């Protein structure tokens, strides 16, 4: 079964540093998402991306965050200057067009630890 792949699985970074989280969505999917889960809390929507632009973003997704699909296969989340409170598990997801009923396929996540 096709998978969404995320790398790295765990990243430790110093506060103030830039990080890039990488995702390879399923190849025929056109909609891409990032979600965040702070330890012990619910899974929260960050941003959705379609046709090379952001289609929706939450209030969490401030100017420190950006997303990009640089080469037609990867989908990245960049945090420009990390803060301690950015420590969380970050999930990438993708879905095919018109496939709301199939839900999203999630990657296994990247655990980001900001020290």
């Amino acid at each position, binding site marked *: 079964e096709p998978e969404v792949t995320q790398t790295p699985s765990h990243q430790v970074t110093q506060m103030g540093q830039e990080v890039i989280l990488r995702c390879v969505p399923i190849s025929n999917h056109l909609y891409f998402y990032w979600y965040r889960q702070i330890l012990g809390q619910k*899974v929260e929507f960050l941003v*959705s991306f379609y046709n090379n632009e952001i289609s929706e973003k939450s209030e969490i997704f401030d100017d420190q965050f950006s997303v990009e699909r640089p080469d037609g296969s990867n989908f990245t989340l960049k945090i420009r200057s990390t803060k301690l409170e950015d420590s969380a598990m970050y999930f990438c997801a993708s879905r095919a067009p018109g496939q*709301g*009923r199939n839900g999203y396929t*999630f990657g296994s996540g990247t655990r980001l630890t900001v020290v």
Partner: protein
Amino acid sequence: AQSVTQPDIHITVSEGASLELRCNYSYGATPYLFWYVQSPGQGLQLLLKYFSGDTLVQGIKGFEAEFKRSQSSFNLRKPSVHWSDAAEYFCAVGTYYGQNFVFGPGTRLSVLP
């Protein structure tokens, strides 16, 4: 916009006992409903989904869920829990066009030997 509640933050059951995890949703149209499971430190795995038809849906790992429109519920059940079922369970609601996929707060399941 849709929303999801899971009234139970933490449930403990004995191995072999039956399980029911509650999920209630709020959405003006017919929702697409999902249950995901997250083992400690792991990603989100889809257990089952409902979007139309038979209101009792079967999923992986012996789980099932029943959609009750009158109660706005989509409770997850398993007749006999195994120790490996200990995990966090998330109910989620989506829409026809796939936007605004929203998770509930999750229910943590502990299994006693």
